[in-house]
């Protein structure tokens, strides 16, 4: 229950004060003494053989420090991929080399060919224009289905084809699934596209390399969601720098949404060049560069089929997906269409038989990787569009069809390898219906029609796997990293705490909500707890923030470390009060002996730990500092039911979101204000995908939406006030906080509701088109209405 601070309170965010006064410290706000600037000369063709890169004229240009090309990085490692998928034949995926600077070939527009380090950025850019680059252009492969045809141009000449892997899940179920389709009373089929997106955190990426000759020490300042992951990947696999000689710092990070998880060439370059040039080297991405160098998201083409029996029970599900990898494998790219997508295809339903096929394809486009939701939005969109389509084909109520097929008993082992621990899908649907005022819809529709508009209502459910995840499980699935989280809790002599967490906030408010958890456990004021993150020299090896994992995994590590602190403090308190440790109770920041009026304050105990004059030195070490690494035993499974009401202008095809409703089950909630804000942001990105955002290439591999002039970012006037509820709470059973994670839900759950609503509006205007692809732009709606 909300109270004055602690778990359940909507504490105001402490980080806001610096952000609101211009005192934030983002990477681009940092400047090193003596720093030089780098400009990357990037390919303007999608595919070609680099026949000559002549830097001689450029090297003479004013201010130039040094110019680098691919040849300078031949002895340097490949940008690594952190996940290996095994295909349906038991073979590992095809994994191409990913150079820091292009060598031999260029494979996408935006790939860096050369890097000019100069005194100023403009000088570097001037010199880059003087570099002579000869490229023999090759035909580009952009369309995934064409890319896997025999004879298609190959993105990587040393691979057998453009097929990264052909994944079957669960391959052993395939025959049974096909048999169920043969026996089905009804089959609903849907072909759809999950549109390519660009994450677009408002802070573009920045990297500053710094090198100290004195200690042979490297420092990289970078806009990362997970500095330790960058240290490991770049140090061990690219540059060969041992971790104790490499520090990675990410100060305030201005949004990430997944795209700042990955290790990028520019980070490796700046670290490398700082030593080569013996001075700090800084790169600040422009937005234009970001569009062609930040990993993109989504980009699936899918055929999905649902088999139902005569009573409308789901009997089997079968999907066939092409997933775009782009030109190279970004850090977690192979996992997104497989383990973050195939495992969620059961959705909220007790479909007994499921088979998922995914073909991952190389194309001459920017690499594609995780973007808010990562695989789960693709799963939820297919499934929830399909269920809606089935309901209309069968002429049954879409909500009733969903309820009929809901999983209702937990734990529930799906046929796609995961076990949902808790959930109550009817409860969130009940809440949604209560919020939606369905009985008033007809009147609202009539009011819209009186204005010449069509009104539609759409609903969907979602399930996601968050809090990633058990290291031993993801290891079996191909992860080349662990997915635990770490925390060190350091108690100072005067009672204040510093919590060093391996999670890293890029807008989620960890400094506030994490402090709430620790303060609540001890019963002290939140202001006594300071959160430190984002610096590998300060915090223990951590895995960072993504996959809605920070509180579920990082928070659990904090809880474990704090439990150790409390256990030790109780020993000290027992000594101070000459009582048995078993009788010591901690409440409201004071230790007492059960059944007596004896008590010592938190501060008395912490002081004793560091001034151990009266102290059980024979049993307990001085000091009060504990570390915990928490590795969960399962994913968490947030779920919910979403609804959207749209108004459609049949003359122009314009769709306006009139209402958006979200009923989520996140388990326990630490800071409701922050959780609600996370849902809002996710909804805007999901609605953005549904209505506005589209990263498009032409057939030559040229990026058509390479700036905000053509990539439609959602603006305030595109969006309504959202109606959000998270009162349905089935706590996670396997982490100490009972939390599930909330960061991605909005983006995962919202696109199908929007499209379902648009199709409902179109049907009310007499046009049943079956499906319309995202983004549902006015032009597409108009074409569909008049097709």
């Amino acid at each position, binding site marked *: 229950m909300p109270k004055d601070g602690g778990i359940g309170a909507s504490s105001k965010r402490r980080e*806001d004060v610096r*952000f609101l006064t211009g005192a*934030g410290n983002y990477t681009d706000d940092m400047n090193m003494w003596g720093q030089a600037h780098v400009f990357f000369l990037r390919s303007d063709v999608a595919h070609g053989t680099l026949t000559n890169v002549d830097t001689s004229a450029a090297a003479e240009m004013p201010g130039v420090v040094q110019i680098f090309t691919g040849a300078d990085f031949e002895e340097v490692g490949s940008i690594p991929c952190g996940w290996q998928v095994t295909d349906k034949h038991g073979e590992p995926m095809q994994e191409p080399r990913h150079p820091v600077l292009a060598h031999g070939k260029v494979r996408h527009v935006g790939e860096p060919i050369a890097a000019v380090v100069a005194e100023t950025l403009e000088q570097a850019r001037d010199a880059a224009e003087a570099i002579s680059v000869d490229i023999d252009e090759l035909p580009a492969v952009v369309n995934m289905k064409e890319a896997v045809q025999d004879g298609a141009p190959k993105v990587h000449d040393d691979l057998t084809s453009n097929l990264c892997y052909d994944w079957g899940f669960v391959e052993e179920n395939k025959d049974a699934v096909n048999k169920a389709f043969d026996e089905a009373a009804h089959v609903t089929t849907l072909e759809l596209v999950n549109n390519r997106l660009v994450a677009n955190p*408002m802070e573009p990426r920045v990297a500053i390399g710094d090198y100290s000759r004195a200690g042979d020490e490297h420092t990289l300042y970078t806009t990362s969601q997970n500095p330790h992951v960058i240290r490991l990947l770049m140090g061990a696999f690219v540059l060969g720098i041992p971790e104790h000689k490499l520090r990675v710092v990410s100060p305030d990070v201005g949004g990430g949404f997944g795209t700042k998880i990955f290790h990028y060439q520019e980070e490796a370059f700046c670290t490398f060049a700082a030593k080569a040039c013996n001075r700090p080297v800084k790169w600040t991405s422009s937005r234009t560069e970001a569009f062609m160098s930040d990993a993109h998201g989504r980009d699936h083409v899918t055929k999905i089929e649902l088999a139902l029996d005569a009573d409308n029970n789901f009997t089997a599900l079968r999907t066939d997906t092409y997933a775009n990898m782009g030109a190279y494998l970004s850090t977690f790219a192979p996992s997104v269409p497989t383990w973050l997508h195939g495992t969620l295809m059961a959705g909220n339903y007790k479909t007994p038989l499921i088979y998922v096929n995914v073909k991952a394809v190389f194309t001459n486009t920017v690499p594609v990787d995780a973007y808010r939701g990562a695989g789960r939005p693709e799963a939820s969109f297919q499934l929830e569009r399909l269920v809606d389509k089935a309901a209309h084909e069968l002429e049954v109520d879409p909500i009733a069809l969903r309820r009929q097929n809901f999983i209702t008993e937990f734990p529930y082992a799906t046929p796609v390898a995961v076990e949902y621990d808790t959930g109550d899908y009817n409860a969130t649907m009940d809440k949604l219906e209560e919020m939606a005022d369905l009985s008033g819809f007809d009147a609202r529709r009539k009011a819209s029609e009186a204005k010449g508009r069509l009104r539609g209502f759409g609903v969907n459910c979602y399930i996601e796997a968050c809090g990633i995840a058990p290291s031993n499980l993801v290891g079996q699935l191909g992860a080349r990293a662990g997915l635990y989280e770490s925390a060190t809790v350091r108690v100072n002599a005067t009672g204040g705490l510093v919590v060093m967490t391996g999670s890293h906030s890029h807008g989620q408010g960890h400094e506030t909500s994490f402090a709430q958890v620790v303060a609540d456990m001890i019963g002290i004021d939140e202001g006594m707890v300071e959160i430190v993150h984002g610096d590998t020299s300060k915090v223990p090896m951590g895995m960072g923030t993504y996959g809605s994992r920070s509180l579920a995994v990082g928070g659990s590590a904090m809880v474990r470390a704090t439990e150790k602190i409390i256990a030790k403090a109780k020993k000290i308190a027992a000594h101070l009060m000459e009582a048995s440790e078993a009788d010591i109770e901690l409440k409201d920041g004071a230790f007492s002996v059960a059944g007596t009026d004896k008590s010592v304050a938190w501060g008395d105990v912490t002081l004793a730990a560091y001034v151990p004059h009266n102290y059980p030195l024979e049993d307990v070490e001085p000091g009060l500092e504990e570390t915990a690494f928490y590795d969960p035993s399962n994913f968490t499974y947030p779920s919910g039911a979403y609804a959207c009401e749209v108004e459609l202008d049949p003359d122009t095809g314009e769709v306006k979101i009139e209402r958006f409703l979200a009923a989520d089950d996140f388990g326990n909630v630490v800071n409701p*204000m922050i959780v609600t804000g996370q849902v809002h942001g996710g*909804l805007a990105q999901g609605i953005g995908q549904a209505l506005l955002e589209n990263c498009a290439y032409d057939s030559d591999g040229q990026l058509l939406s390479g700036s*905000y002039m053509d990539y439609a970012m959602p603006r305030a006037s595109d969006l309504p*006030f959202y109606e*959000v509820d998270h009162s349905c709470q089935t706590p996670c059973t396997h982490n100490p906080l009972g939390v599930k994670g909330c960061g991605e839900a909005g983006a995962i759950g919202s696109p199908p509701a929007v499209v379902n609503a648009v199709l409902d509006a179109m049907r009310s205007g007499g046009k049943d088109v079956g499906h319309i692809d995202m983004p549902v732009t006015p032009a597409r709606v108009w074409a569909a209405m008049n097709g």
Partner: protein
Amino acid sequence: MTQVKMTVNGKAASGDVEGRTLLSQFLRDDLGLTGTHVGCDTSQCGACVVHVNGEAVKSCTMLAVEAEGAEVATIEGQANADGSLNAIQQAFQDHHGLQCGFCTPGMVMSAAALLKENPKPTEADVRHYLDGNICRCTGYHNIVKAIMAASGQDVSAIAAE
């Protein structure tokens, strides 16, 4: 190089700049006022909004020399004299109108300009006025709510904590 002089947050400021130096670069690189952010290069995102002679402008789309003699106000000068958050800043904190904080300086400066010309804006007024300020984190709900609250309007009927 040209010398440029202006008043920034009430204090005299000067520096030598090139013709091409943008006001945003002058503020960040010469004056160290890094609260003004740059989020795009097509004059769309609004993270760089400051006030020049009392009007909101995109400082990444104005040359520093064009601000010669001007009164410039940035996010660093918005707090009250005692250092406490001003009404708009406080409303953003109270209503969780920011997450990563990167767009926030521009949002606050645009909000200040809006409330100066329209002291009691409707929801539609606020949303329309923010056409040139992109936020990727909040979905705008709490920004709109914060600005309406900062104008003294009762926002308790608007959903959420």
